[in-house]
């Protein structure tokens, strides 16, 4: 079995972003970038499946500028086998990402594609679902447990009211939720080894995809600031304020 894991390079989750009023966009200058946390969980899950003897090869693919290769190297250091870098200047919208991934899947066949449920920059939560539609494959989003049994995959999903378990036919597309696993740190020897692993390059223009965006961003603003910081001294005062000032109880 072969697994494909798409990964995205995003602003590190610990960074507090700032909106640049002049460019009308989020300021990405000199900001720490990392692998999208949900994608890291996807890489980890693929490695665990391989360690359980249920997968022969893990291929990691990333779209983006030259630096996206670092993100691929990250995943290779964790334990993925090789990488594919699709060179794009910016980060395309999810539909276009899904179309590029569809082409990647046409070049080589994958039994399983594991993606993060959403990237923490645009928060779209679409790519995995769209890819499953384009490939006409079964879909298991928000996975918190994955069990592979011959031709089927049992997926436990985090849903609004609790957990849902479904059975998917292979080949399938999965997206990861937070509690699927805890990703490992890459060891120094593995980081060294990852430098020898292959990263193939692909040019989107060779894939025959119209890269014109269907949605454009007009502007980006800071959200209205919440004025907080009020304090009370006791529970009695709190209850009094809630009852008589705010009128919420």
């Amino acid at each position: 079995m072969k697994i494909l894991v798409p990964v995205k390079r995003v602003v590190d989750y610990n960074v507090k972003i700032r909106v640049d009023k002049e460019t009308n966009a989020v300021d990405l200058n000199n900001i720490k970038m990392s692998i999208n946390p949900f994608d890291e969980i996807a890489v980890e899950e693929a490695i665990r499946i391989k360690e359980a003897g249920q997968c022969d090869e893990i291929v990691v693919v990333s779209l983006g500028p030259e630096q996206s290769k670092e993100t691929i190297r990250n995943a290779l250091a964790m334990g993925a086998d090789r990488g594919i870098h699709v060179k794009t200047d910016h980060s395309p919208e999810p539909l276009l990402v899904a179309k590029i991934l569809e082409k990647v899947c046409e070049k080589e066949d994958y039994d399983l594609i594991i993606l993060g449920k959403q990237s923490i920059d645009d928060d779209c939560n679409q790519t995995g679902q769209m890819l499953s539609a384009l490939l006409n494959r079964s879909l298991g989003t928000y996975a918190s447990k994955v069990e592979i049994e011959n031709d089927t995959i049992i997926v436990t999903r985090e849903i609004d009211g609790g957990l849902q378990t479904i059975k998917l036919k292979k080949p399938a597309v999965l997206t990861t939720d937070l509690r699927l696993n805890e990703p490992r740190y890459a060891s120094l020897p593995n980081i060294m080894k990852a430098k020898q692993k292959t990263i193939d390059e692909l040019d989107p223009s060779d894939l025959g995809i119209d890269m014109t965006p269907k949605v454009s961003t007009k502007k980006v603003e800071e959200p209205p600031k919440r004025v907080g910081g009020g304090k009370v001294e006791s529970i009695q005062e709190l209850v009094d304020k809630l009852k008589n000032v705010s009128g919420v109880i």
Partner: protein
Amino acid sequence: MSVLVLAEHNNQSLKEATKKALTAALKIFSPAHVVVIGNNCASAANDAATLEGVEKVLLVEDTTYENMLCEPTADLLFELMKSYDYLVSAATTNGKNILPRVAAKLDVSQISEIISVIDNKTFQRPIYAGNAIATVESSTEKNVITVRTTAFETAQVGSSVATIEKIDAGNNPGLSEFIEEKVSSSERPELTSAGIIVSGGRGMQSGDNFKMLESVADKLGAAVGASRAAVDAGFVPNEYQVGQTGKVVAPELYIAVGISGAIQHLAGMKDSKVIVAINKDDEAPIFEVADYGLVADLFDAVPELDKELEKIQK
């Protein structure tokens, strides 16, 4: 122009989330149609038919749709969308699961979790966990949109009742099968529709200690929530989680107990009308967004709050 709203329901009644998504849909175009897809779910369709601004309800009942499996539901919506310009759903796990699959089949992008409708092609949506708001414009005829329900009012019951039209089920591509669902049954209101929420964080120290919050919640008719830290520590199940990666809520009153206020938690609750924070660390970031902060040990403060509320009840 025409708008179709996908209903969220439990095969019995229509969920509050859909009433909010309907409000957003009506800002794009009024009146709207609602589609109820499920099994033995006519009562949910009846609910939808009473709402102001609903012209017609499409009802599709079949065992295939009992659990809203993504692949057959998306196929059916794709067929229905031949007659509509917009598909709108609340950004519930069902909406988020199914709609992008329909969008890809229609060869359009989805606009996720809108918080306002500027015109019928321009919308605002939060990015970076709500730390920035993007205004986006669609260039396509057909549009697929999910709605962040906390940003819209609940649609009200109207003066007339819409017609309900039964639609034949589509094919089941047979790619997936439902096995089971473990949904916590609680007398308390659901997090996303509750007027008051009492949430606990890592400071609660154990799942057992959440009983203190439950007692307070029951006196207020509130839902109980939790921070990611409390869920990751195994104190409470995942469906309790409020935050960027959990549920986004905006109740009248949010009481945060033993929650430090990580960015990703704030992203899920900072639009609440009144925020109360109880934490013994006076430098916890939660105090920066709180209207009423109480620096105290929660193990003293919560039982005291419980007693005070009991007094009010009497």
